[in-house]
């Protein structure tokens, strides 16, 4: 049972549960992506603990409380696995949170200047892409959950 299925909790035997069995491979790949984005082997400037914290913040912004709770549970667990030297500086963390909010709330307003701000805080090119992938994945995951929840009441 993948995280998306757990949270959506389709009624066994319903049309939605039936449809999801036809999309098992997509749900499985979605779970693999979650693992790659939350627990990467090369996290760069965005430690596992910070990733879980950003994901819980985004899940709240998308108004998916059960997803936020999942990420809140991961925060401490992920922090315990992070190396002390993995921590981003305060300035970097502030820049990361601001950019994450932009990608979540107003992606259409993003410009070159926003990438320059990240780089000015000491983020390298790989970190800029890592952050975009994290925010983009949580957007996908939250929307799949919201969309499937909306279909639950369907005949």
């Amino acid at each position, binding site marked *: 049972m993948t995280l998306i299925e757990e949270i959506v909790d389709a009624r066994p035997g319903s049309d939605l549960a039936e449809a999801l069995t036809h999309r098992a491979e997509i749900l499985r790949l979605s779970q693999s992506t979650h693992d790659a984005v939350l627990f990467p*082997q090369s996290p760069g400037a965005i430690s596992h603990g910070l990733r879980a914290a950003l994901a819980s913040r985004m899940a709240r912004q998308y*108004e998916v409380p059960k997803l936020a709770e999942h990420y809140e549970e991961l925060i401490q667990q992920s922090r315990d696995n992070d190396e002390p030297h993995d921590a981003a500086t305060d300035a970097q963390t502030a820049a990361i949170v601001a950019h994450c909010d932009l990608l979540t709330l107003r992606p*259409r307003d993003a410009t070159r200047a926003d990438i320059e701000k990240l780089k000015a805080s000491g983020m390298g090119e790989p970190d800029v*892409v890592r952050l975009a*992938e994290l925010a983009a*994945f949580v957007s996908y995951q939250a929307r799949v959950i919201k969309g499937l929840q909306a279909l639950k009441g*369907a005949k």
Partner: protein
Amino acid sequence: MTRVVENFTTQVPVWSPYIKPVELASATPEQLAAMQVTPSNKGVSPYVLTLAHDPESLAVRSPLFNQIMYGKDGLSSAERELGAVGASVVNRCIYCAAVHASRFNNLSKRPGVIDEIFERERQARLEPRDQAIFDFSAQLSETPPAIPKTAAADLANAGLNTLEAVDLVLSSALFGWANRLMHTLGEPTEREQAPR
């Protein structure tokens, strides 16, 4: 100096990254594998070379993308593309909108749908089934998602079965992802006219 494309169009622009892409010549084995570079496949776009900075994400995302957009049963390919266009309009990703609008046109042979969407965006008036698909994908793409209580019934009334509705959720959500990469890591620029 190349000009940035500001308006929705079906002419696919050139995507210019804001950061320096990975160079194919110095890419690591992990990056090459994530980009699916093989001796017979060396044509890698600037977009994929940019995403190769995070090979762990790219490697898992590519198969997921292909399954969601090119699955054989369920929602028709053209309607998956329409879901992608709905998300891209909300997020104003000119590049994604151009690619997927032209795919919709090629598949559906109904360019009037895209003309209307590019002209009036969220106010577009479409045939009932197109309207239900476009509206749902746009509503799901807002932050937070703004799906009305009637959404499931609206899709069913427009003739979508549950599997088709699930596929619409997936393609719309996938484009929230693609737009957040394509539109925020670079910009669409005008294609150079070929020199005569």
